[in-house]
């Protein structure tokens, strides 16, 4: 008993030791600035030659965001509309690609490299340049009238998001690099003998996918959900983030107001994440229940 106590204590101590550099960095460069911005979101902040002046406003900034600001709620809503649909698509697509490049095919390593490539493209200046040149759209889609076809055959409420997805298809491809990697790692963990046994018992590839592969990669779906939501919502292309940045140095709104917007946005992202995770968990449980019966 005594030995065991000692061991767990030692474990904890090593644990704390290993994380301490990160914790210090996190507290100084993330946690403190975050709380400072929360404090500022309740204030009117003015940067004067004598330093930073603050006036306490209470919920004033938050009220302004919803009641006075015409841009913010509109942009936030538009952004959510176009991005929430992208989340499941990115997940399904990256799982699909991961399955393909996990197959024993010729040139597999080359394909793996190619599909991981977006990781270097989607960050920084490169993608900005590509966007300004319009390289992120597929010209073929417009040329052959696919979009007008959709518009003609579907109600506007349905057609809008679908066209949005087609237009953003390349973007979806580019945002799945890390997700593909995570799924691939999950797939490679599956024991190949399980597949062989299933094939022996006469399971079709389709059944094998639902009964073996999917349950095995399930934890990775959750990881990818979180990663995708973060990746989509906090990259520099979010109109909401641009709006927040614009407000930061405006004389009449300032940093306090920008902070309030950032916290509202953060709350929204958090809510989206929570909804997806809860939905996913429920589904998971119902699948499990179904299998048990």
């Amino acid at each position, binding site marked *: 008993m005594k030995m065991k106590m000692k061991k*767990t204590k030692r*474990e*904890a101590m*090593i*644990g704390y030791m*290993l*994380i301490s*550099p*990160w914790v210090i960095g*996190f507290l*100084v*460069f*993330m*946690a403190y*600035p*975050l709380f*400072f*911005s929360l404090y500022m979101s309740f204030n009117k902040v003015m940067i004067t030659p004598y330093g930073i002046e603050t006036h306490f406003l209470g919920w004033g900034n938050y009220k302004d965001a919803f009641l006075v600001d015409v841009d913010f709620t509109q942009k936030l809503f538009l952004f959510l509309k176009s991005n929430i649909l992208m989340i499941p698509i990115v997940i399904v697509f990256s799982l*699909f690609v991961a399955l*393909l490049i996990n*197959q*024993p*095919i*010729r040139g*597999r390593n080359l*394909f*793996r*490299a*190619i*599909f*991981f*490539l*977006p*990781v*270097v*493209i989607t*960050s*920084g*200046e*490169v993608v900005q*340049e*590509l966007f300004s*040149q319009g*390289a992120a759209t597929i010209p073929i889609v417009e040329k052959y009238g696919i979009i007008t076809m959709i518009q003609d055959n579907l109600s506007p409420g349905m057609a809008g998001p679908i066209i949005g997805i087609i237009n953003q298809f390349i973007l979806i*491809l580019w945002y799945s690099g890390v997700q593909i990697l*995570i799924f691939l*790692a999950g797939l490679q*963990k599956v024991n*190949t003998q399980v597949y*062989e046994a299933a094939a022996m018992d006469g399971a079709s590839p389709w059944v094998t996918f639902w009964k073996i592969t999917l349950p095995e990669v399930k934890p990775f779906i959750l990881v990818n959900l*979180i990663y995708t*939501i*973060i990746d989509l919502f*906090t990259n520099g292309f979010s109109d909401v*983030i641009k709006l927040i940045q614009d407000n930061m140095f405006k004389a009449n709104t300032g940093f306090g107001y*920008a902070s309030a917007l*950032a916290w509202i946005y*953060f709350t929204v992202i*958090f809510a989206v*994440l929570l909804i997806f995770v809860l939905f996913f968990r429920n589904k998971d449980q119902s699948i499990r229940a179904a299998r048990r019966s």
Partner: protein
Amino acid sequence: MASFHGNKINPSRFSLGQLKFFVFLVPLGIIMVLPIFFIFSQSLKPLDELFLYPPTFLVQKPTFENIGSLLTVADITRIPATKYLFNSLMITLFVVVLSLVISAMTGYALSKKQFRLRKVLFEVNTIALMFVPAAVTIPRYLVVEKLGLINTYMGHILPLLALPVGVFLIKQFVDQIPNELIEAAQIDGATDITVFAKIVMPIIQPAMATVAILAFQAAWNNTETSTLYMSQETLKTFAFYMTTLTSTVGNNVAGQGMAAAAALLMFVPNLIIFIFMQSRVMDTMAHSGIK
């Protein structure tokens, strides 16, 4: 070695059975590679082609004019471009190495060591990932100023080390290592360092390579710390220098060509680090012994 996957045999020849995979992989792969051709072709386009409408994807009459004019402008500024390059290389090197070490240590501890704050800390990290980075600019400036990091290399490096996404990814990969494997090693007398080096490291290599790429990009493309924390010109980064070069020419016609050339110049190191790292990214589970 790399092609050995248990009972699956990597075919060395194309067969008809593979066709169904290629139907999907080839077009998708082409879309993935296109941007890279685009960046190269764009920087080689002469001015009249850059403004062509509808724009052409590939360059018709390639020229080195853009790159040439970028270098001439670089020549007439006071500080040699190599100084900025040196700054960026130093900063990037430190950021990549240190954030790898910190993320790996933290990810391992958060996943495999038992202590009270473990779960809370990881959740706090994930939540921090969701916050708009721009919104902490001013408080972070105040912190940097208070620590006396204005106009020091540390002012570039330290703020970039808080890479929550690195901790997030590495922890997810360490989670996949069964505890029994680590316990077995410990029973055989392995110390924490041995466990880490011999068991954990090989398995999390894909995550480490990814974090290295992400950290490299964060550091290499970083202009924010130069604009905010550095007033001395000699301490600024190459990425910042590139933005000033293209903006001094203004948004005029010649600037577009130079911007394309600068984009290429900034992108090439990303591509090099990617090619260097990617072989480590995808194919390690096969040797890890945890099938």
